[in-house]
């Protein structure tokens, strides 16, 4: 089993390595980078690098299944392979921990990863640089697996940074495009700010407990005799680690990179920026649950909050905030991006209030339906692009104002997309309903009433903007230029089959976690319990009962869909009327509250200014070198003055000697 565990990440890595060195060869092209021949040459290349990448992830998926079934039978693996870094008392091994939590993540990463790899075969079929693309994609799977499998914080951090690198490379995949490389750079740097906190958290853990291995760390927390002594430290650790999660999982205030990250190819958005990497923060909080559950009351709070409170509030604020921006965006991928930010907020509410399994449950269902929605969006973009391309138009294929009526043109894409839409809107029995409801009712029962109601508001907005997206894209009259309309055709089956599989899971995935209140027995929650603890169902109900909460949540979803139906289904003019009536609000939302502009003015520009004007041209050139030059000039001058005395004439020397003698005598006689 040790070997199988090791192979799970190593096989995709091998795929990446093979594609790095032999990708061009496998493709059978000798002049891969030569764009001059590209447009004709690309059709002659073989898709072997892509297939290889798919196979590698497929093997990983099969191995993950084997591991998963072992875990299902109650097994747990904690394997150390070798000592990785040793420094003083600091010891970190390369080791894996497989429990229900990481086994679930394994399946999500390799399973959805595999489907997206296959989809990408079709989506990227005409890209001249495919070996590079699949190389990065495989490298990402490897990194993500390291992140979820690590049995200590350092292996996790390795994965954490490596997925960031892959994300950077893939966002900037179209490297000739300025906006793409800008977005990649932004993603990396913003994540680095989060990593600063994450790194501090790790050091603080090591400083407090002397270990960064999960099992030892959690045992040490449990056996702590004097809980008051470490209470504040624990809160600080939890908050610092969460700063890392804020960066990686795009929460307020570091969410700004994710919408820009849509510059990457769509399969990348689906895999990295929706289903897997951005959920790493949620996974981390769930993994470190003993830290977040360690709450002894106000004595250990910082700024009046426990670490869990901070997670909850940030998650809640983000869930609502991002949803409001999603209401007015016109780029199909941007809407989904803000939706992802918002949904991640819900996951953080779950893990923040202590309902770890609910958070991870939403992570799971969201992975299905959001990957589905992104791939569906990719298919739509593909359809539009193809149509525009045929007739030589340069309209934006991602702008929903150019779409409409696609249902009849691309049925599979439309139907699967609709499945994803109902799932995210929280309509039972689709998967999103169960997980979102579990989170919100947990928040309610833990006493976060405000969070619950804001969550409901967010859910309503979610249903609204998703319905708006669906209605404007698939229904009504086509708004594409007439000449392009007849060229709109469904995508190839290599793309639609993954859509169907994902749609299937988006519909049914919720059934593994039907709550007790609805006659189920929350199988998923019990399955995860050994890793994250059981979230105790409330013994006595205060306030609303479970049934009423579920009712409110369903109502919110339906209401959102209803509003959108009235405003957008028949291309009624209401929407335009609203946007003119509430112009300031609308503009603010459209410009995303001007947050990017504010960051640029308040943070980016001052740093640049300080670097150039103060440090480089100020301190270095003016002060330090200035001092140096003054020293040099002084030395030079001294030399010149002294040289005047060294004339080489005996008379001068005699004169000065006499002068000196005279002065000495004068001094002595005085």
């Amino acid at each position, binding site marked *: 089993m040790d070997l199988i565990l090791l192979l799970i990440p190593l096989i995709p890595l091998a795929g990446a390595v093979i594609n790095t060195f032999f990708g061009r060869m496998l493709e059978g092209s000798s002049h891969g*980078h030569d*764009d001059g021949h590209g447009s004709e040459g690309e059709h002659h290349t073989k898709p072997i690098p892509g297939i290889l990448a798919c196979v590698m992830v497929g093997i990983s998926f099969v191995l993950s299944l084997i591991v998963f079934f072992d875990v299902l039978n109650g097994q747990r693996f904690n394997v150390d392979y*070798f*000592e*990785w*870094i*040793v*420094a*003083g*008392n*600091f010891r970190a091994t390369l080791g894996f921990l497989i429990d229900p939590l990481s086994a679930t993540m394994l399946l999500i990463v390799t399973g959805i990863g595999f489907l997206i790899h296959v989809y990408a075969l079709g989506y990227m079929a005409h890209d001249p640089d495919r070996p590079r693309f699949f190389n990065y994609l495989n490298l990402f799977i490897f990194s993500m697996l390291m992140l979820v499998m690590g049995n200590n914080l*350092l292996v996790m*951090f*390795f994965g954490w*940074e*490596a997925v960031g*690198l892959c994300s*950077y490379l893939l966002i*900037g995949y179209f*490297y*000739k*495009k*300025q906006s793409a*490389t*800008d977005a*990649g*750079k932004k993603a*990396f*740097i913003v994540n*680095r*700010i989060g*990593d*600063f906190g994450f*790194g*501090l958290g790790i*050091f*603080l853990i*090591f*400083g407090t407990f002397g270990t960064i291995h999960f099992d030892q760390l959690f045992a040490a927390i449990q056996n702590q005799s004097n809980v008051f002594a470490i209470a504040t430290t624990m809160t600080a650790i939890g908050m610092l680690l969460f700063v890392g999660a804020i960066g990686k999982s795009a929460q307020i205030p570091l969410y700004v990179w994710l919408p820009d990250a849509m510059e990457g190819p769509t399969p990348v958005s689906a895999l990295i920026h929706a289903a897997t990497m951005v959920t790493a923060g949620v996974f981390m909080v769930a993994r470190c649950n003993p830290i977040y559950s360690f709450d002894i009351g106000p004595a250990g709070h910082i700024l009046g909050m426990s670490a869990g409170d901070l997670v909850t509030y940030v998650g809640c604020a983000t869930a609502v905030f991002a949803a409001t921006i999603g209401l007015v965006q016109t780029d199909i991928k941007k809407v989904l991006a803000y939706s992802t930010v918002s949904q991640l907020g819900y996951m953080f509410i779950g893990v923040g209030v202590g309902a770890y399994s609910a958070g991870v449950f939403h992570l799971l269902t969201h992975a299905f339906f959001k990957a589905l929605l992104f791939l569906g969006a990719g298919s739509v973009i593909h359809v539009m692009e193809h149509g525009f391309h045929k007739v030589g138009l340069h309209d934006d294929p991602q702008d929903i104002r150019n779409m409409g009526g696609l249902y009849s043109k691309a049925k599979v894409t439309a139907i699967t997309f609709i499945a994803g839409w109902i799932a995210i809107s929280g309509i039972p029995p689709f998967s999103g309903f169960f997980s979102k409801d579990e989170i919100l009712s947990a928040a309610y029962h833990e006493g976060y009433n405000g969070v619950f109601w804001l969550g409901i508001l967010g859910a309503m907005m979610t249903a609204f903007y998703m319905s708006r997206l669906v209605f404007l894209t698939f229904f009504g009259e086509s708004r594409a230029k007439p000449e392009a309309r007849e060229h709109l055709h469904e995508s190839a089956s290599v793309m639609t089959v993954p859509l169907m599989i994902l749609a299937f899971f988006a519909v049914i995935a919720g059934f593994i976690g039907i709550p007790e209140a609805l006659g189920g027995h929350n199988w998923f929650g019990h399955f995860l319990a050994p890793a994250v603890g059981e979230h105790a169902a409330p013994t006595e109900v205060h306030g609303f009962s479970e049934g009423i909460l579920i009712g409110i949540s369903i109502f919110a979803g339906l209401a959102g869909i209803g509003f959108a139906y009235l405003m957008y289904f028949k291309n009624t003019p209401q929407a335009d009327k609203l946007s003119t009536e509430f112009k300031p609000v609308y503009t603010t939302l459209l410009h995303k509250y001007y947050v990017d502009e504010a960051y640029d003015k308040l943070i980016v520009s001052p*740093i*640049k200014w*300080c*670097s*150039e004007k103060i*440090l*480089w041209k100020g*301190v*270095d050139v003016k002060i*330090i*070198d200035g001092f*140096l030059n003054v020293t040099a000039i002084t030395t030079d001058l001294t030399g010149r003055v002294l040289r005047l005395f060294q004339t080489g004439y005996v008379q001068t020397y005699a004169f000065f000697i006499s002068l000196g003698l005279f002065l000495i005598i004068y001094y002595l006689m005085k």
Partner: protein
Amino acid sequence: MEAYLLSAIVFIPTLAALIIMMMPEENVTGVRMTASFASLLTVVLSVVAYIFYDPAVARNFEVNIPWVQVMGINYHVAADGVSIAMLLLTSITIFTGCLISWEIKERQKEFFALLLVLVSGVFGVFVSFDVFLFLVFYELAVLPMYLLIGIWGTGRKEYSAMKLTLYLLFGSALLLIPVFGLYVQAHAATGVWSFDYDFLRQNFNMEESWQYIFYPMVFVGFGTIGGLWPVHTWSPDGHASAPSAVSMLHAGVLMKLGGYGIIRIGLQFMPYGAQEWSLFFACLTVVNIVYGSLSAIKQTDMKYIIAYSSVSHLGIVTLGICTLTSAGINGAVYQMFAHGIMTALLFALVGVVYGRLHSRMITDMGGLAKIMPFTTVAFVFAGMTGLGLPGLSGFVSELMVLTGAFSAGVAGTPSPMMKYIALVCLTGVVFTAIYVLRAVQRIFFGQPTEALLRNEHFAHLLDTDRREIFALSILMLTIVLAGAYPVWIIDLINSGLSNDIFPRLGIPTM
């Protein structure tokens, strides 16, 4: 045979330099081959030294021959773990540096001869266990730099060469005081005139008040070459003017002499002084790390970016030393190795780009990735090492040094203040990311700028040839080996430090 190993490593480059000087001027290929072969030989011998190194023995491959008996100067060469790590670093850097320097167009003979003499000096420093011999080799390593920059450099080369030389001479002058103080005081205490490192170490403890006076002199003296703020400003100008191979060797190896000297002489003979002064110097290193990385953000010359990044990264070396913990000092030496290889790679890449475009302004580039894919991959790789991506070597040293800094108060050593210093240093990770990614984007991504299209060399721009790929790959492979499985280097370094430095400082060995 064993006894000759280290002397062979030290003198093979000098010998090669003599042979080169006797060659006819026109035989350029012969000159290059001789230099490359000699440096390859040092790589092989360093690896041999690594393989036969016995961590249980304090002085491996020891030779101790009296040289100037009246003054107690010996030809005492030996190696411990730290020396071996530095020998590996130096030999790899000079070998790849020679391969990259085939670009040099004028006076190849003198260039390679000087380069090899310089390397002899560097090797000599790393194996000397006699303080006087140490200083002799040190000067031998530092002085040829003046000529190498002044003759083969570019831009304001005379100014830079002079600035660099004056700075380093100032450092050397500052060093002589504590060294001779040590010599005289040891004589007063023991009645023996001796420069021998081990003799002094075993028979003499300097008075605490003197340690307090001498330690900062040693630290600033060596710090000058080690890029310590504020005596670092020679470094950006010097690197910018120097030819690529010289920059590689200079930033890769010569600047490491600073940290090496502080550990060998400062920590060894003035442990009390080290404890008293460490907090003060730690504050300077913070400035190094943050200031260096911040200053690099807006630079437009590739070499200035890398030079400032070196200033920043070498702050990690000095910070590690200042923590006075096992993790920190081990990390400092590891960083000397890791940064040496990384910066050699970066300067080599700048050489590759500059050699083709005759421009180093990143504002005048853009879109090179399409034409130079290998160079791009290598540059991104080096950049990722620089910004501390786990799995590559830069991360390991940062982790070790910061672990040392964060545990400094715990271990009962200097001060809990060290934690806050480390905290400020950690902000460097953000700034480093900014300048690395900015450079990568400006040089390789996007579309070629107007200036680049006007550049006459752009039309026939080619990616790296086989020789360059070979040299760059060696460096990249070393980075992966050191980063993915760092324990082999850490053990090597630790075995050396545990023998004499850690006991001296009262640090428990790990």
